[in-house]
């Protein structure tokens, strides 16, 4: 049976893409041989196809790969604190906090309040949420009092010496991590 023009034109794309079934291909080619209008359509489509497939690739800008890789390195570098060893840093930070507390003007010695003193305060503040008992709050207050008393008992010189020592340890303990970070930044 002879193929109609509309049927032929629907199959022209598949013919051009090389994805037409063999039996249809023969029918389309026969139709094209005898139909000038469809042949013209085919030639126009073919010109579009050839132009698209033969367009040369443009050379990417020099430095694009290097720029991509620099961004990749920058993004994949872990945050500085992810590389630092936590213990020396924590000791140094603790001692700095101690100095801060120590230099408060005339810090009085603190005694832990008794349960009887605390109870009305918490009752007034309506502290009644689940899991926080008055006992626990009392323990925290007692711990805080002990810490402040301990710090005030130390001489300023001892505190400064301990802090310098802790900061020194923190730096020494993290030298290799800092070198790694610097090397990545340079790269």
């Amino acid at each position, binding site marked *: 049976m002879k193929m109609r023009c509309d049927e032929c034109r629907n199959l022209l*794309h*598949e013919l*051009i*893409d090389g*994805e037409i079934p063999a039996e249809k291909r023969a029918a389309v080619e026969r139709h094209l041989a005898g139909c000038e209008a469809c042949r013209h*359509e085919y030639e*126009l*489509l073919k*010109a*579009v*196809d050839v*132009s*698209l*497939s*033969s*367009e*040369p*690739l*443009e*050379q*990417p*800008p020099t430095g*694009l*790969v290097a*720029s*991509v*890789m620099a*961004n*990749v*390195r920058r*993004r*994949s570098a872990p945050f500085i604190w992810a590389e630092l060893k936590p213990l020396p840093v924590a000791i140094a930070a603790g001692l700095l906090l101690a100095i801060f507390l120590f230099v408060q003007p005339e810090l009085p010695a603190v005694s832990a309040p008794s349960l009887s003193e605390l109870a009305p305060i918490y009752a007034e503040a309506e502290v009644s949420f689940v899991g926080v008992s008055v006992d626990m709050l009392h323990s925290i207050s007692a711990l805080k009092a002990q810490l402040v008393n301990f710090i005030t008992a130390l001489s300023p010189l001892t505190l400064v010496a301990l802090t310098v020592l802790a900061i020194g340890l923190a730096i020494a303990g993290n030298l290799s991590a800092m070198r790694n970070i610097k090397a990545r930044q340079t790269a």
Partner: protein
Amino acid sequence: MPETELDRETIRAAREGDESAFEKIVRFYTPTIYNMALRMCNNREAAQDMSQEIFLRLHSRLSRYDASRPFEPWFFTLAVNVCRNYLTRSRRYEVPLSQISGESDEGFERASTGKTPLEEGAESDLHQLIRNEVKKLPLPYREVIVLRYIKELSYEELAEVLQLPMGTVKNRLFRAREMLKQRLKKLQRE
């Protein structure tokens, strides 16, 4: 999809965090990715930005790639998604190269075609015309045309990369080419 020259070992190493293996992937795909982006947006600056985004996204998503499946369809699906997002955000880049002040081919080498300057002149006019017409196609048609011709993907591969039914892909490809053909026809009459 044409067989990749990148061996699976390189992709596996990059997936496990080997930076030099990842750089090998970037070097290998940069020409294709840059040209794909360029044909999508027709602007060199935007094409560079898009290429950057594609490779950065690849770097952050590579650990999720299922190594038992082919790499290229997965990677090009990711690349197309980045291009879609970029173009949706940056409509200002939709300007033909020829109309951008200061834009010239200087500093951008073209691969040698082995044609005479006269042949190249006629061809480059047609290329320029088609390139500008491709840029005017709606994005769903443009991406199917760009992928089809830059990667020589079959209908089935296009459907896989674009994550669309094959019928939709064929329909979009045919309609895109019809639009370009109509434009060429009109020019022939003028």
